[in-house]
């Protein structure tokens, strides 16, 4: 009884929320590590210095775009093309940010901005699965800790990859290409188990994305359209979600 009472009191403290945020961010940290290492190794091979490799992770913090840029640097593509490709590929974060910021209406604008800058596919989807935390005291610290945990492993892993060079056997690093997809699946399936209709929203988004790319649309815009139109189906399919606190 005594410890329960203490937990109830400390449940709303800042440091407790930070700790919970870090724990929530742990799976992202483990998912990012091998990917970040691989990015660092590939970027080093494309001729980027360790400072450039690390700086890109610090300032851009977007895995897919960074891999794309490294590939384009290696292929000798111009800077303007790389920046435009990055914009198109990362525009999906605009849609994710709208969704995340709408969830965080309760917190101040000056706290929303740093959180919005930390949005990636992974930090966004994991944050959105922790719905009740957005209503608790010190919500900012929960999401900030979650994002920083992911950020530190992304930046640290990139740096290590650049410094150590080829540390991972090629076959293993090839196999790690599945890691983030497995993580997305691991995030989606528990929600589907609770509400089967969530699978319909996800499958609808998959189909839109697939068809758009089939018709030759750029991958970045196809994901944006798939997310927007797939999400639109949720207006009708996920009405029961709204009743939850």
């Amino acid at each position, binding site marked *: 009884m005594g410890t329960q009472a203490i937990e109830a009191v400390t449940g709303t403290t800042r440091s407790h929320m930070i700790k919970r945020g870090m724990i929530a961010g742990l799976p992202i940290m483990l998912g990012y590590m091998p990917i970040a290492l691989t990015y660092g190794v590939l970027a080093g091979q494309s001729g980027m210095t360790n400072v450039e490799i690390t700086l890109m992770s610090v300032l851009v913090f977007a895995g897919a775009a960074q891999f794309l840029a490294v590939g384009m640097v290696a292929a000798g593509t111009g800077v303007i093309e790389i920046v435009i490709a990055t914009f198109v590929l990362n525009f999906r974060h605009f849609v994710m940010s709208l969704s995340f910021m709408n969830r965080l209406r309760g917190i101040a604008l000056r706290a929303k901005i740093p959180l919005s800058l930390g949005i990636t596919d992974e930090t966004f989807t994991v944050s959105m699965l922790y719905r009740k935390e957005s209503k608790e005291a010190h919500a900012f610290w929960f999401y900030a800790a979650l994002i920083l945990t992911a950020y530190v492993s992304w930046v640290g892993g990139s740096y290590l990859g650049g410094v150590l060079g080829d540390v991972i056997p090629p076959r293993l690093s090839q196999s790690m290409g599945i890691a983030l*997809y*497995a993580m997305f699946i691991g995030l989606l399936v528990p929600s589907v188990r609770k509400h089967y209709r969530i699978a319909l929203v996800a499958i609808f988004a998959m189909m839109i994305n697939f068809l758009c790319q089939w018709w030759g649309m750029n991958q970045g815009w196809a994901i944006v359209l798939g997310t927007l139109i797939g999400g639109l189906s949720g207006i009708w399919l996920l009405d029961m979600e709204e009743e939850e606190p």
Partner: protein
Amino acid sequence: MIIWMIIGMALVTAVPRFIPAFIIDQAHFPKWVDRWLNAIPYAALGALIFPGVLSVKPDAPQIGVVAALVAILLAWVNVHIIVVVLGAIASVFFMTL
């Protein structure tokens, strides 16, 4: 040159990320938009998984499909997400031996 590329990439990534913070601060949405925005994570996960997972091994898309099925199975039986990730990595590793 690389440094300008990094700064350009950082700008075009950061601006779309933070603009919604201001939009949400100013605008109030009707109920259906709230529902739309609440469904975005599930739609995003779907769009991120497929068809991207087919390109895990571009010359052998079935490897991505099998690994995804392994991940779905593991996630369905409620193991920790870290086990889901490790299981999928292991299945690709053994399929490409």
